[in-house]
C-alpha cells in the first residue's frame, strides 16, 4: 500500500469517517469527529502506520490534512517518490 493511501486510511480508521470525507479541507476542530480526543486516536494510528513518534509539539502542529502530510514528510515519510 502506498504511503498516501496509508495516510488516508489512518483518517478513516481513527476518526470513523467515510473515505470520501478525507481530503485537503479536513481541519482539526472543524468536524465533530476530529476533535481533541479524536486527534489523540489519529496520532496513535499515524504513529503505528508510519512507525514514527509524534510528541506534543508535533501533535499541535498536525492540525490539518495538509500539515500532517508536511510533518510526516519531515519525519522521513516519503509521499512522492515511493
Amino acid at each position, binding site marked *: 500500500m502506498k504511503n498516501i493511501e496509508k495516510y488516508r486510511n489512518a483518517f478513516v480508521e*481513527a476518526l470513523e469517517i467515510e473515505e470520501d470525507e478525507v481530503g485537503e479541507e479536513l481541519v482539526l476542530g472543524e468536524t*465533530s469527529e476530529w*476533535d481533541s480526543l479524536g486527534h*489523540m486516536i489519529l496520532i*496513535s494510528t499515524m*504513529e503505528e502506520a508510519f512507525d514514527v513518534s509524534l*510528541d*506534543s*509539539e508535533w501533535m499541535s502542529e498536525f492540525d490539518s490534512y495538509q500539515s500532517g502530510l508536511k510533518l510526516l514528510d519531515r519525519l522521513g515519510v516519503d509521499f512522492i517518490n515511493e
Partner: protein
Amino acid sequence: MTFISIEFLLFFAVIVFAYYSIPHRWRWVLLLAASYSFYASLSGYFVFLLLTSTAFSYVTGILIEKQETKKQKKKVMLVGIGVLLFFLGWFKYFNFVNDSLRAISAYLNWNYTIPYQEIILPIAISFYTFQAVSYLVDIYRGKLKAERHYGYFSIYFAFFPQLVAGPIERAKKLLPQFKVEQTLKYENLSYGMKRIAWGFFKKTLIADRLAPIVASVYDNPDATGSQIVLATILFSVQLYADFSALSDIAIGCARMLGIKLTENFKQPHFATSIGDFWNRWHITFSTWLRDYIFVPLCKGKKKRSEIYVAIIITFLISGIWHGAAWSFVLWGLIHGFYRVFGDHTKQARGKMASFTYLDRNPTFHKWVKIAITFLLVCFSRVFFRSDSVTAAFTNAQLFLTPSSWRPSGIIDAFEIFSLLDLAIFAFFFVVMQLFHHVERKNASTWNWLSQRPVFARYAVYVLIVVSVLVFGATGQGFVYGGF
C-alpha cells in the same frame, strides 16, 4: 516576605537597580542570591532541600545525556524522577497516606502503629519538582541539552518571581533568557510595573476582601444552602483573583528584569466548556499535565474509552497535586468526569441545541455555555474549598438543592457582606470585569490603554494604586502558595 508587602517591593526595587547596574556576567549571581534569600525568608531551612533538589537534578540531567542507549537514558531519568517525587511525596503526602492507611486499618480492625508525623510542607515544592521533572524528561526526549552552567541552572530552579506558585516554566524557554544580556528598556519596566500593580489590585481588592466572607460561610456548620451557593460563586471569583494576581506579579517582576514568562490565565470563567476552561486556567500546569502525563498515557490508544481512562488518570493526578486530601482527589475526579461526560454527550447536546433553537442564536448559545461551564466549575470548587470530605458532601448537597437557588434566598444570603464591604467589592469587581471586557475586544488591555490620551491613562493608573493603598486588604496568604 510575601509578594504583597512593602518589604518585597523594596527588595525588588533594589534587585532591579543592581541588576541593570552590574555587568551581565555577574547577573546570575545576583539573581541566584536574590532567589535564595527570598526563598529562605519564606521557607527557612527548606532552602537546603531546594539546594539538594537543584544539585541532584543538575547531575541527573548530565547523566541522562551521557548514556549511550535510549534504554539507559530512560533508566537514569526514571531514577531521577523517582528521587524527586520521593522528596515531594515525603513532605506532601506522607501524612495523607499514613492517615488513610490508619483509617482503613481501623475499619478492618487491623493494628496500625505508625503515628501522625509533624511534617511541614516546604513552600513551592510542588512547583519546582514539576519544573525539574520536565527538565529531565526533555533531556531524555532529546529536546533539550543538559545545562552545564550550574549558576544558570540553579536560577531556572529557583527564579524568585515564579518560584512560589509558577507559572511552571520549561527550561527550553527560560534558560536562554537568563543567558542573553537584557538591556534596560522603558517598555519592560513600564509593562512590568503595570502587571505588578494589577496583581496587587486583584489580590488586595478582590481576593483578600472576599476571603473572610467566604470563610465565614464555609467555617459555619449552620450555613444555609443559599449561603453555600453564594459563597461558592464568590470563592470562584476569589480563587481566580488570588491565583491570577500571583501570576501577574510574577510576570511583571520577571518582565522588569527583561524575562518573559508564560501567561497562566485567559479569562477562565468565560470558558464555553470544561476542556476550554482547562485551556484558560493555570495554563502552564495544564500543558505540563498534557505533555508529561496525558500524551504519554494516550500512546497507542485507539479507542475513545481508552482515552477516557487517560483523562481520568490525568485529572486524578491534577487533584492530588493540588493537595494531600481526599477532597482534592474528588475535585480532580469530578473534572475528569466532566470532561469524559462532555465528550460522550457532545452529539446529544448538539441535537438538543438544535431542537431548542439555541444554535440559531450563536451569541446567546455561547453565553448559555459560559454560564453552565461556570456553574460546573463552581460545583467542583465546593470540594476544593471544603475542609473535609464529609463537609464537602454536605456542602455539595446544599449546593445542588433546588431551594438553595431561590432568588429570595440568594438575596438574603448577601447578609454575609456588610453594606460597605458589598459596595467596595461590587465596585472593584466591575472594574475587573471592564478590564476583561476590553481584553476580549482587544488583544491586551495595557496596549489599548497605552493608546488612550495621557490623562485617561494616568487616571487609570492612579485609580489602581490609590485603590490598593486606601481599600486594599492584606494578611491572607496566596491559596496556591500553599501547594
